[in-house]
């Protein structure tokens, strides 16, 4: 479903991703772990087109996200092309990034109405169903600031799901939360995984990764160091760098 072909990402002289190859199959739950600055978040940001590749190509569902073909040559994709491809992708941010000027319900219905041209009653019904799914049916009329961090993040998940994505990206979704609120967000994500959503999750929650993930990817310095079944990687890491990192976080 997702394929990174020798993707480079540089900011000036700073190499963030170094000829990265990486792929995700449909329905797979992949967690990315690694020290900060290792490039995990950049993978998500490239997929969401918040950043552009410096080299290599990114494929989403058989279509190239980063480039389009002009005649026989590949050229960097324009915004119009990327817009079409990225509509299949939803993203949840560390800082939630809900729209504070809108009520919870409008946060969720805004994009379906404006982008998918759903009418109001259609979008509202879908939003209410999603709020129910994340356990916040009674918060439709609240403003984001009136919710706890965990509730805000669950609304953010509902907002992303309202666009009916085929792939969900989570960028450290629980890192900004008080410890007692982490569980409620992870529960929603587990449910989503059980429903068969393809998910890429950057997280420091190793217990969660071990329990839910199909594939665990350990990254360091812009490259994949080790990948495999989370149980194997976490309990029996093969590389020194993986061992060193895990000894600090487990």
């Amino acid at each position, binding site marked *: 479903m997702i394929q990174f072909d020798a993707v480079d990402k540089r900011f000036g002289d700073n190499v963030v991703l170094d000829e990265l190859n990486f792929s995700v199959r449909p329905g797979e739950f992949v967690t990315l772990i690694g020290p900060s600055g290792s490039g995990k978040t950049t993978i998500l940001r490239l997929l*969401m*087109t*918040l950043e552009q590749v410096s080299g290599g190509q990114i494929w989403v569902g058989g279509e190239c996200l980063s480039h389009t073909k002009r005649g026989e040559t590949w050229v960097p994709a324009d915004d119009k092309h990327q*817009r079409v491809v*990225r*509509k299949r*992708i*939803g*993203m949840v*941010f560390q*800082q939630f*990034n*809900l*729209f*504070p*000027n*809108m009520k919870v319900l409008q946060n969720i219905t*805004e*994009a379906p109405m*404006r*982008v998918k041209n759903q009418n109001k009653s259609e979008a509202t019904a879908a939003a209410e169903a999603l709020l129910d799914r994340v356990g916040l049916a009674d918060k439709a009329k609240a403003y984001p600031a009136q919710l706890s961090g965990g509730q805000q993040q669950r609304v953010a998940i509902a*907002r*992303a799901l309202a*666009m009916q994505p085929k792939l969900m990206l989570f960028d450290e979704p629980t890192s900004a939360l008080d410890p007692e609120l982490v569980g409620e967000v992870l529960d929603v994500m587990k449910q989503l995984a059980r429903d068969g959503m393809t998910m890429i999750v950057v997280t420091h929650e190793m217990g969660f990764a071990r329990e839910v993930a199909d594939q665990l990817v350990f990254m360091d310095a812009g490259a994949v160091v080790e990948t495999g079944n989370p149980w194997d990687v976490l309990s029996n890491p093969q590389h020194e760098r993986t061992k060193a990192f895990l000894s600090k976080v487990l």
Partner: protein
Amino acid sequence: MNWNWDYAWEVLPGIVGQGLLVTLEVTVFASLVAYVLGLVLALLRRSPFAVVRWIVWGFIEFVRSTPLIVQVFFMFFVLPNVGITLDPIPTGVLTIGLHYATYTAEVYRAGIEAVPKGQWEAATALSLPRGRTWVAVILPQAIPRVLPALGNYSISLLKETPILLTIGVLDIVGAAYQEGSAAFRYVEPITIAGVLFLILSYTSSLLVRRLERRVARSN
């Protein structure tokens, strides 16, 4: 110097009845021009086209670097030569509004930049069109924050309106001067004009302070 109460009462209705209304009219409409045009300038300064950004930058620098009175004379005496003739009050409203728009543009810019980057990213992640992102997400967060600063510019603007005396607008000061010249006695009318400005500025600044507190609370 002596103060004549009878004379003061005599000139007061003329200054308040005519001058005050004109001052308020010019202030309100010039402020509206400054608010709307300032936002337009702020948005154009973020245009994807470099040419547009340069033109707007040049316009802002030009307007800010020349005295308001030169701009007033230009609009009033030069524009008719190219076939654009406006009455004194509309000329004043437009010129002062335009002048202050170059300052409110900066206020809007700061307000827009204060909206967290994550809001743009969330809008991109949802594929919201750019125009809709501005209207529904960015501006509703940016504008409430800048309202107090806009209010302060309206107060400055209010105090500059007497400049329109030079093109024959009878505002508070113009009316006071007219009353004074009828009797060759200026102390009372000019003092009254000053006190009226004091009252207007002070009450406006109280309103702005209330607004500031409300904005601070809602953040």
